[in-house]
């Protein structure tokens, strides 16, 4: 049973460029969340996708956008990259339901983005 897979694992971009990161959720999961983790910090919530729509968003500018596809996979796009966007970008999947076991996230290993 494959867990959450993310690609690419590492990438280097320059300021002003655009980047797309990809995520395949754990089998059976229908909800995908994206987090940004700066070096030495805890992850920060960017947004969550469910039923191909953005359901909730954290405190991130519009340069950060996303998409969820019918097969539940997701992309994170960042435009006009800044040096401060250098971070580990984590994708987490979950199953949308209420009750015991709800809100349990499975994280991928992340995509390490370096902006020069």
């Amino acid at each position, binding site marked *: 049973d494959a867990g*959450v897979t993310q690609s690419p694992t590492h990438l280097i971009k320059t300021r002003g460029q655009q980047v797309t990161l990809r995520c395949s959720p754990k089998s059976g999961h229908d*909800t995908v*969340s994206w*987090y940004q983790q700066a070096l*030495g*910090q*805890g*992850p*920060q*919530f960017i*947004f*969550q996708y469910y039923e191909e729509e953005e*359901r*909730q968003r*954290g405190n991130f500018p519009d340069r950060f956008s996303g998409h969820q596809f019918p097969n539940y996979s997701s992309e994170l796009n960042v435009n006009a990259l800044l040096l401060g966007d250098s971070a580990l970008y*984590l994708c*987490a999947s979950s199953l949308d339901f209420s009750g015991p076991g709800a*809100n*349990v*996230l*499975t*994280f*991928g*290993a*992340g995509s390490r983005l370096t902006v020069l």
Partner: protein
Amino acid sequence: TQLLEQSPQFLSIQEGENLTVYCNSSSVFSSLQWYRQEPGEGPVLLVTVVTGGEVKKLKRLTFQFGDARKDSSLHITAAQPGDTGLYLCAVHDYSGGGADGLTFGKGTHLIIQP
């Protein structure tokens, strides 16, 4: 202001010692989660605590949720090098009206030296 304050920020101890790390807040939470993250990996859920005063054990790890559901602690007995990692506490922050994103603390970086 951080919603969750974790302490200590860094901790390096010898194998076999005991340790406790803390996660504190001025807010009340319906539940709190602890994760461990190893280098090059994503966070892995260790436990979810729900009831005030609740104690959960996972082998040598003991998790406690404060009576007022504002804080939590993680105690490790006889630490081993395999316990090395970043320990993160997290809650669902309902203040923005949503209930889906997790808010993490900055974590405790734990190193267990052989």
